[in-house]
């Protein structure tokens, strides 16, 4: 009888020691990274899909319900989710994931930000005080983010420290090897002139040495107007570009309009995990991104 009790207690304790962390990931790339770094120790809910504009998500009740039970929120930060995340966190009634607490993780705080605006004026469009938030397009950024995220997982679940450390070491090893491969593959892209639909690629350009000529959106977040597209076309006559880039969630028409008239390639990049069928995980996301860029540059 006593043995049975001991055994069942043991089972109980061992269960609680292996209880999964509930993670609320704002974007698919952070869901994928958390999965890689934590394996079966976490159960992850991804709040947005690759075909959704992460700026314009509604604070749906379903998101609030998922945040209610989360132990850790993993988001980009830098105001990318400002239109919906504050309401979700507030309404969740979950004090463990409030900004500033250990259950709130912002990937942007681990990397060097680009495009930090010199002045904050809404007349300049949808700009972010802390810099451009689309940090996931530079594969190098995943190393410092993985370090910081792994540390956070250990902080929240110290019982599994070695598990997280091993996962981190394995990921970094694979990622460094992949980075070398991608950078070799992308070497011919260096100096390639590009046009972007939305100013969402500064990190990609910075990484691969692409040269951004201009953007189809007159101001960040504003829909490309016919007049502005005409201007872009004129500009392209003086400074020709190889291709026009857009994220999977963006409207195809402005890119196509420019591509047809300027006789350049319109390249749709997956932008995040799940952005197309090929980009099924973090590694294939960049495999596919570089393959598409190389195809567009031909």
């Amino acid at each position, binding site marked *: 009888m006593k043995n049975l009790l001991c055994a069942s207690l043991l089972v109980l304790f061992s269960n609680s020691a292996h209880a999964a962390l509930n993670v609320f990931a704002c974007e698919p790339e952070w869901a994928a990274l958390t999965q890689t770094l934590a394996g079966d120790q976490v159960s992850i809910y991804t709040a*947005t*899909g690759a*075909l*959704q*504009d992460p*700026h*314009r*998500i*509604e*604070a*749906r*009740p*379903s998101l*609030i*319900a*998922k945040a*209610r*039970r989360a132990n850790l929120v993993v988001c980009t*930060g*830098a*105001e990318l*989710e*400002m*239109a*919906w*995340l*504050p*309401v979700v*966190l*507030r*309404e*969740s*009634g*979950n*004090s*463990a994931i*409030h*900004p*500033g607490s250990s259950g709130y993780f912002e990937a*942007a*705080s*681990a*990397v*060097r*930000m680009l495009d*930090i605006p010199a002045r904050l004026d*809404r007349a300049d*469009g*949808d700009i972010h*005080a*802390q*810099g451009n938030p689309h940090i996931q397009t530079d594969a190098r950024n995943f190393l*410092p983010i993985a370090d910081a995220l792994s540390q956070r997982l250990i902080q929240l679940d110290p019982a599994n420290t070695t598990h997280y450390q091993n996962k981190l070491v394995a990921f970094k090893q694979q990622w460094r090897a992949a980075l070398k491969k991608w950078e070799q593959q992308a070497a011919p892209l260096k100096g390639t002139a590009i046009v972007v639909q939305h100013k969402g690629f500064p990190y990609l350009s910075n990484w691969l040495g692409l040269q951004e000529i201009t953007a189809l959106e007159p101001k960040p*977040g*504003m*829909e490309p107007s016919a007049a502005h597209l005409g201007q872009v076309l004129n500009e392209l006559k003086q400074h020709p570009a190889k291709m026009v880039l857009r994220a999977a*969630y963006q*409207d195809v028409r402005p890119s196509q309009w420019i591509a047809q008239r300027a006789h350049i390639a319109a390249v749709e990049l997956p932008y995040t995990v799940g952005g197309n069928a090929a980009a099924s995980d973090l590694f294939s996301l960049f495999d596919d991104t570089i393959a598409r860029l190389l195809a567009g540059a031909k």
Partner: protein
Amino acid sequence: MSKKIYLSATLAALLSLPLYASAATDADLQVIREQIQQLRQSYEQRIAQLEQRLQQAESTGKRAEAVAEQAQTTVQQTVATPTAASSSNGGEGTFNPALSLILSGTYGSLQQDPTVPATGFAMSPNMGHEQGFNLGESELGIAANIDANYRGVATLALDPAGGISVENAYVQTSALGNGINLKFGRYFSGLGYLNEQHAHAWDFVDQPLVYAALWGNQLGEDGLQAKWLAPTDMFIELGAELGRGRGFPGSDRVKNGAGSGVLFAHIADDIGIEHSWRAGVSLHQTRADNRISDGVPDLPGTAGGVSNSFSGDSQTAGLDFVWKYSPNGNMRDRYVKVQGEYFRRKENGLLTYDLATANIADSYSVTQSGWYLQSVYQFMPHWRAGLRYDRLDSGIAAIGVLNAGNVIGNYAFNPTRTSLMLDYSPSEFSRLRLQLARDNSRQGLPDTQMFVQYIMSLGAHGAHQY
């Protein structure tokens, strides 16, 4: 005693002395012993010193490692987050407190006098419409975390005629956890779907008829709200409010205790990534004390109507639902929103007819109801169109004998209205709207209404609720 000591000393000496040493003299022995002792001491000292040095080396090594790590992280941090000091919880924290100002205005063109109330609802406040150019209410909002436990929100409505009214001024808890949120102060009640939304977030220029007639557009309360979110995959939220009951259908009064109570429950979920919905039930109870309404038509047909006063209980039940669809869940491009609400109110008490002259009081009981159904369609980025249908039922009142010949019990008319809306939002912060309405809410006075509206928001623009 001394014998014992001597014995043990001899024993010890015998034991400690090696056998071969027995041959040596006592003096020699002493010398050797001392030498050994010295040797031992010096070795022990050296070992201790070595150990100490090793420990020191180890700890400094560790410290060096730690320092190096720190240096690395600080370097990373300084490189990574030059704006870390000013950053925080996404947007609102950029300014502390977050300040926002809503500017809005309308142009209204009406064919009928807007002071005539909806038929059968003369005892409700008449929200009416403004004609010509007019400045809407400008809304000044201030919000910030007070400390780790509380968040404060104030919304001041700047009246175009001058003067400021407090629309919202409440404190919200943020550290209770367990899905519990408390709110106290002045807030919009959580009943229904539209009630909590501020005017700048409305999809039409005006509120549905049922909100205008039964809630005076919006029910604001001074009180306490408690909400609990269930720890389930599906969104299940229960809420309760105790308030002063100052707004219609209650009436402000001076007394202890609560003047009104609200219970509400919401359930919601997603279906795939493209559909989301929410449904809710609400109950509201309050008491009216000498709630005076002017210009109420009566059976004798008094010109300009009479002033009545009602005292009694008011109970309202409501159902609400909203469903949204967006291709690929990308709200930025296209979406459809369908929503509807139904409210039914029972009032039971004493009606005093014609306060000015007749002044006759007798029992009065009526059940009124109303509903609306609307849909908004964003057919391309920045452009939305909407259609709304409103309907009210003024019910058949049971009137005491004393007033049977005075008070109208059955209007035999259902007010209805159909509204069409088109709006354009160049950015998230600006919206221009055109609305056309066929208003049949007043018997014999059908009205075609046209409105042009602008809504602009400056400063921190907090996230909107679902």
